[in-house]
């Protein structure tokens, strides 16, 4: 009788585990993360001559069963919630079919003039291979606070869509914090950029007392902080950086650290990261440079987005 009960209980557990979860219901996903939409545009270098959108080779598609991991040396990352509710992430790397424009260029999608030396990188479209996606944005590393900030900055999947709400950004922020390992850093605030929000949301939040700007005088990059930074440091990723020693006499190999370099030094070694993050951040806040040493120690507020590139 006991065995029969055990078998029945086991069968019941198996059956329930095979049922679709709440997160997999397309209607619920539409509500939580926005309706699945085609990217607003695909840049000329993102598809090969056969029309196939080249995947970013650093792609990770995260859910509860398969968490992703971030690396401060590879920041910044782009993220998109895909059709199945996974968080697809990939760092911005140089695209093999892209070019570097020494004299700058005119970009037809947003009719903007890009600065000299601009390189064509993998964008959000390369994370999903050009497929439809839900709300999307960036994961930026703020060196000052050693935190990852999240925003909704995507010209393909967030902007131009009428339902990419602040509530969806909160849901996405919660999911990302749950299924993406911050790689030894911690989670910073979650920003909702009004330049990438639908008109109804802009109207609502422009009157909000929580409205903030990257530069209050210039009223640049209006945004709302939806979720504050997390305080507890993530320990899980430290384990990732450990190595197993062959010389270990124990049957189970012992771990030892491989990479002890601080994230800031690593970033300095990478000119790409230096160029993308710091240079523009400093320009946006000229006062910060003039302040004395004592004041310089005061941590700066993380920026809501990294640059003016709308992709």
């Amino acid at each position, binding site marked *: 009788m006991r065995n029969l009960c055990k078998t029945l209980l086991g069968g019941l557990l198996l059956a329930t585990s095979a049922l679709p979860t709440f997160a997999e219901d397309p209607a619920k996903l539409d509500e939580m993360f926005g309706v699945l939409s085609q990217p*607003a545009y695909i840049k*000329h270098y993102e598809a090969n001559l056969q029309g196939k959108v080249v995947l970013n080779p650093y792609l990770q598609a995260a859910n509860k069963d398969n968490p992703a991991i971030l690396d401060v040396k590879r920041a910044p990352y782009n993220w998109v919630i895909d059709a199945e509710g996974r968080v697809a992430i990939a760092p911005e790397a140089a695209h093999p079919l892209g070019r570097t424009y020494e004299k700058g260029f005119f970009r*037809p999608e947003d009719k903007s003039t890009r600065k000299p030396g601009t390189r064509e990188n993998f964008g959000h479209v390369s994370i999903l291979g050009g*497929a439809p996606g839900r709300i999307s944005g960036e994961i930026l590393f703020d060196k000052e606070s050693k935190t990852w900030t999240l925003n909704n900055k995507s010209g393909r999947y967030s902007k131009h869509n009428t339902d990419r709400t602040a509530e969806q950004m909160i849901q996405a922020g919660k999911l990302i914090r749950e299924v993406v390992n911050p790689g030894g850093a911690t989670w910073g605030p979650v920003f909702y950029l009004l330049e990438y929000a639908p008109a109804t949301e802009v109207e609502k939040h422009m009157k909000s007392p929580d409205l903030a700007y990257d530069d209050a005088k210039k009223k640049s990059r209006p945004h709302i902080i939806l979720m504050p930074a997390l305080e507890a440091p993530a320990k899980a990723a430290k384990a990732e950086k450990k190595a197993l020693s062959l010389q270990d006499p124990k049957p189970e190999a012992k771990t030892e650290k*491989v990479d002890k370099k601080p994230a800031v030094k690593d970033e300095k070694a990478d000119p790409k990261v230096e160029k993308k993050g710091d240079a523009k951040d400093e320009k946006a806040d000229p006062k910060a440079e003039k302040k004395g040493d004592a004041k310089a120690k005061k941590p700066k507020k993380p920026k809501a987005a990294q640059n003016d590139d709308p992709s």
Partner: protein
Amino acid sequence: MKTNRLNLHKFALALVLGSAFLGAQTIPQTHVVKGEKHFIAGYDPINIDGTVNVVIEISAGTTAKYQVDVKTGMIELEQKDGAPRFVKYLGYPCNYGNIPRSILDKKKGGDGDAVDALVLGAALPSGSVVRGRAIGILSLMDTGEKDDKVVVVAENTPFAACRSIEELDKKFPGVTTILQTWFTSYKGRDKEGKLLLSSPGFKGRSDAINFIGDAVLDYEKSVTTDADRRPLDEKGNPKLYRWPLAKNMGE
């Protein structure tokens, strides 16, 4: 009687395999596995769900050194001094293969070959293309040169539940030790009695993702020419490629 015959067959087979394994008597042969596509250039390295594809060259438990020929794109039994090459050691502890469309750039200290992968799971035949997740790297030094191998857990196997080297160690005790011991020992020792290969240990998943991504990008860069790029307009600006401005109207 029937059973006895079978046993005799098995005994004969064991003799042949045993002699091949010991390297005392190898049967000269050329064995080629031709796939539906070129085994290096024909398959995507990464899938949309974040898994990687691995072309299996050597099946777990075997000793024959099969490898993809970059020119023909076929898997061939390696030949050395006019004879097929067999590992003179225990059979491979896991499936061994490479990640298509990847290259370890010689300029960056690589060997110019595709990324080697150790695929954990049941034995798979040469020429299989299997999906899995990279969980780490077995760092190896072969006579002073880096020879790192990515550790991949194949989908739909008991190992698929492992997300890191630490988890692999916890859930499957001894596997990391077996891999390290086998790969540092199978080539034997030098004249001074030192093992020809050495291993400083394993690296984590983040390193594995970066290692594969870098190698795939290096491959794409190596095969991309200006002819593969879309032409610019007369002023040197990109042309509009696809601009549906897809709008979700909230309907």
